[in-house]
């Protein structure tokens, strides 16, 4: 019962985030929404694993969290530099607020 509510709430959150991913005025909004969808998916898998009493599903949840995080970092690197090979240490340092 409570699991149905939990799964439903997660799905509502995912659809809200997906709406933002499609609407998102900037590229960064879309990445943010996709990251949020990933985190919620991890929770959904965890809930499913506990409902179905399959412990091995939790490995998949952990794996999903991992791939989600590294995927976001990879996309950001691509957006920031346009390629994967530069180390980005161009001496510019941080942005200026002025």
């Amino acid at each position, binding site marked *: 019962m409570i699991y149905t509510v939990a799964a439903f709430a997660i799905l509502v959150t995912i659809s809200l985030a997906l709406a933002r991913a499609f609407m998102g005025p900037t590229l960064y909004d879309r990445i943010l929404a996709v990251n949020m969808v990933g985190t919620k998916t991890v929770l959904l898998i965890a809930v499913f694993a506990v409902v179905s009493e399959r412990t091995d599903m939790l490995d998949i949840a952990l794996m999903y969290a991992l791939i989600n995080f590294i995927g976001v970092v990879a996309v950001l690197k691509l957006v920031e530099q346009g390629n994967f090979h530069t180390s980005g240490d161009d001496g510019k340092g*941080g*942005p200026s*607020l002025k």
Partner: protein
Amino acid sequence: MKYPVKHIISLGVLLFALWLGLSGQLNALMVSLGLASTIVIVAITHRMDTIDNETYPAHMNLLLLRFWLFLAREVIVANIDVIKRIFRPGKNISPQLFELPLTLKTDLSRVIYANAITMTPGTVSTNLDKKTVTVHALSIEAAQDLYSGRMANAVPEDYEDE
């Protein structure tokens, strides 16, 4: 190359404990495979350290546990504040972007501080370097709270490292 043996051992013990926790199988084959994996990973990590010249900050202490309890409370309070702002009609936020001077000594405590700022909703650290951390805050109160240095004082400092 200053690279304390203590770090290698603590990393190895931590990884092996993690293996035992993940696996849950205590027969000889699995335990020895875990030991072998731990040794391989520690070797690779050691190689990374010697090549990119950044030592692995491996030791944690009890201060960190106290900091986590502090952080848990902060996160709950900040969450309630942001949720109130979400459901308050009309103009509900006053965003700020400012630089905060850092007094922390080691990279590890700077990173812990920046992650703690990001973890409490209402403030997000947007840039981090040796001297300052740039913060975007949702409200003037959150910004002032950060300026008071309450959280920076709670971050555990690792004096041993420098």
